[in-house]
């Protein structure tokens, strides 16, 4: 093939350009730390990275959601424990009140303590989480119970609030104070009757029936408490799984879109060497022609 000076120079320029392009590419990868900067760099990798990013973002949100659900359940559990403890105390007091040696004054004191327990249960039943009344069903903005004379009234409804902790995975977090949940209204009424009996009756009240109903309410509270506990465990497990997924997704994403620095540096060095070589060749190509030897 006939080779002319012009061809040598055109070739040299073309190779310079090509080598510089490669260097630019590697430098971009190093500077951004990403091997995929636009979809055409690696179409399937780019769409995989997109999916992983949105998975990761969803996963992070689900972790937040489980944290929220756990806090909500913790407050519910604390409230139910308080109610359970209060009922325990009320039971002790009731047994004590059955003692026939008690004077009416003694019984009145017991009645006063029962009243305190009532107040406590009323307050605990209006517990809030971030300003929301947890036992009120959907009516979270107002206290779940209001107090009238000798009775409390449930102001909420049976609404079930669910949190999403996975795609399509929704778990109700609230226990309502209405008839479907813990029957606080009935509980309060029973204690009210007991209190009034202790105050008004000269006789020892019918302790057995009170004990039976207190035990029923205790069991109810305990049942809900263990349900809440079981739910908490479930959220804990979901949370652990989500945290695992986060690690996996992050790892996968990094493998998909991050540049392997060591490899890129090696490639860059190699490209630099080639570039230097092409410069050196260039110096030789713009070499003397026959002109220089014709004198």
């Amino acid at each position, binding site marked *: *093939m*006939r*080779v*002319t*000076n*012009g*061809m040598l120079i*055109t*070739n040299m320029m*073309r190779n310079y350009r090509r080598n510089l392009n490669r260097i630019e590419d590697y430098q971009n990868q190093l500077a951004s730390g990403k091997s*995929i900067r*636009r*979809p*055409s*760099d*690696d*179409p*399937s990798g*780019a*769409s995989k*990275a*997109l*999916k992983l*990013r*949105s998975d990761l*973002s*969803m996963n*992070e*949100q*689900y972790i*937040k*959601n489980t944290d*929220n*659900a756990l806090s909500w359940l913790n407050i519910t559990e604390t409230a139910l424990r308080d109610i359970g403890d209060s009922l325990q105390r009320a039971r002790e007091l009731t047994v004590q009140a059955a003692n026939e040696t008690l004077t009416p004054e003694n019984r009145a004191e017991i009645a006063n303590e029962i009243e305190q327990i009532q107040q406590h249960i009323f307050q605990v039943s209006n517990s809030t989480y*971030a*300003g*929301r009344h947890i036992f*009120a*069903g*959907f*009516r*979270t*903005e107002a206290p779940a119970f209001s107090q009238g004379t000798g009775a409390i009234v449930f102001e909420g*409804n*049976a*609404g*079930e*609030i*669910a*949190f*999403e902790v996975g*795609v*399509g995975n*929704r778990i109700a977090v609230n226990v309502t104070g209405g008839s479907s949940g813990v029957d606080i209204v009935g509980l309060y009424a029973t204690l009210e009757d007991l209190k009034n009996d202790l105050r008004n009756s000269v006789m020892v009240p019918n302790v057995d029936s009170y004990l039976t109903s207190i035990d029923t309410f205790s069991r109810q509270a305990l049942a809900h408490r263990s349900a809440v506990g079981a739910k908490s465990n479930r959220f804990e497990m979901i949370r652990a799984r989500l945290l695992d997924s986060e690690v996996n997704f992050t790892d996968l994403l990094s493998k998909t*879109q991050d540049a392997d620095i060591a490899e890129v540096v090696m490639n860059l060095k190699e490209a630099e060497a080639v570039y230097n070589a092409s410069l050196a060749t260039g110096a030789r190509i713009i070499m003397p*022609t*026959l*002109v220089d030897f*014709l004198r």
Partner: protein
Amino acid sequence: MRSAFYGLEIARKGLRAAQVNLELSAHNIANANTEGFTRQQAIQRAIPPTMAVSLFETTAATRIGGGVDIQEIRQIRDGFLDLQFRRENRGLGEWEVKKNTLSYIEAIFNEPSDSGISTAINEFFNSLQALSMNPEDATTRAAVQQRTLALTETIRDVYIKLEGLQSELNQNIIFKVQDINSYATRIAALNEQIFNFEVTGRKANDLRDERNLLLDGLSKLVDVNIFEDSLGRLRVDMGGGRMLVSHTESFRLDVVRRSDSLTHPQYPKNNHVDVGGLVDVIWQSSGEIVRISGGELKGLIDMRDGIGGTGTLPGEDQFSGVPTELSGSGISRFLAAAPNKNDSYGVPYYMRMWNHFADTLMITFNAVHRQGYNLAGATDINLFSDGTATFDYSNPRQPVARFITISDEVRNDWNNIATIFLDDTDIAAGIAPDEARGNNKNILRMLDLRHNTFIEDIPNIETFTKGLISTLGVASRQAADMNHNQETLTEEMSRRRESISSVSIDEEMSAMVRFQHAYNASARMLTAIDEMLDVLVNRVGIVGR
């Protein structure tokens, strides 16, 4: 019997030939770096002896030729390589344009990044998730309001940039048409000059170089076929065998603005999404649309008009209605059929898909949002709107992607975000909308739309964006690869052309030395004959003096 001065004439011709060759080398060297220059060579031939037999000539063996003659100055050029170069150059023009355009579209979508559409979508859904856990809270509502606004802005921004790109491509087409006209005029003018010059029998080498350079340039713009007849008249055909240049006459192209109607008999609007002011390239004389099958002009037209199919296309001719699952009664919307003439994947394809996405988002979210209740217990509230006062959620203004925005209700008061939805259980429990502030069921229903939009060809939002980005990536990659191939091919062709046609300084130097010697030798010959004649004229016959 030959003349005694015959040798002088031969030597003179030798001198002349050497001189011409030296001058030709000088011309070649002077143009060594001229673009498009083809090296020239003098074709010389020995002059045969005269055939006339003289009465006094005893034998034919003593006949001698008449020296040397320069027959023509010839270009060293291979027409076949020109043909190949121009064919590959046409492909290069087309793919270069496509590569650049698709690469620009990639920049518009800006994925994968932390500021692209997928981030906007993720943040929008995450804010909804946060709201689902705290539907009464003002700050969480404000966050949803802002994320919704940000999402619509991102959608509009991408769409408006795509529209801008389509307009730019259109403008570029107009420029290229002017370029082609200018090429045609110049080629026709050169044809005339070359023809007039060559009538005398000489070759118009340098004018031909100029014309070849123009033809090379033209071959990158459009698909051209070039013919030269035996008389040296050149014809340039393009667009399915129509003449662009016929010898000294050129036929002009023109552009005509397309009608805004999809059914215009001659120049209809091609696609629903097209911006206004697009032009068709026509023959000025007949008004017929030029059929272009290659070159930059084809690249530009494909990118400007390509909608990824012809006939009825999802999100183009027939928009999805409001799905029955969401509205209770399916609401259909139909648009008039568009011509959709170009099935390449150009800017309109991405506009169509983007608009379809925006449309789906608006229709489905509004349908769900309207079924929910705001904090005050009101219902039938839109989340998105097209920005008009007469907004109809079941038939928004098209293209949705250009107009989509947050509804006025939600923009003015975040309490209007309809978080509350009463399902059958709630209704059975006798719960009224205005006493259910803690209800988050409508948010959960909106979150469901992420994974199921109920619209046939957009099964879910993630798959859609992922699919669009990967289609774009593959197309852009392919264009870049094709462009690279064409570059390599044209480079190879032009290398081979250079190998034959370009000036080699070394060769010219050797030629110079060769012809310098030839010149010297002919001059020496002249001296020898001169001496010979001197003897004959001045010394012969003076013995007796």
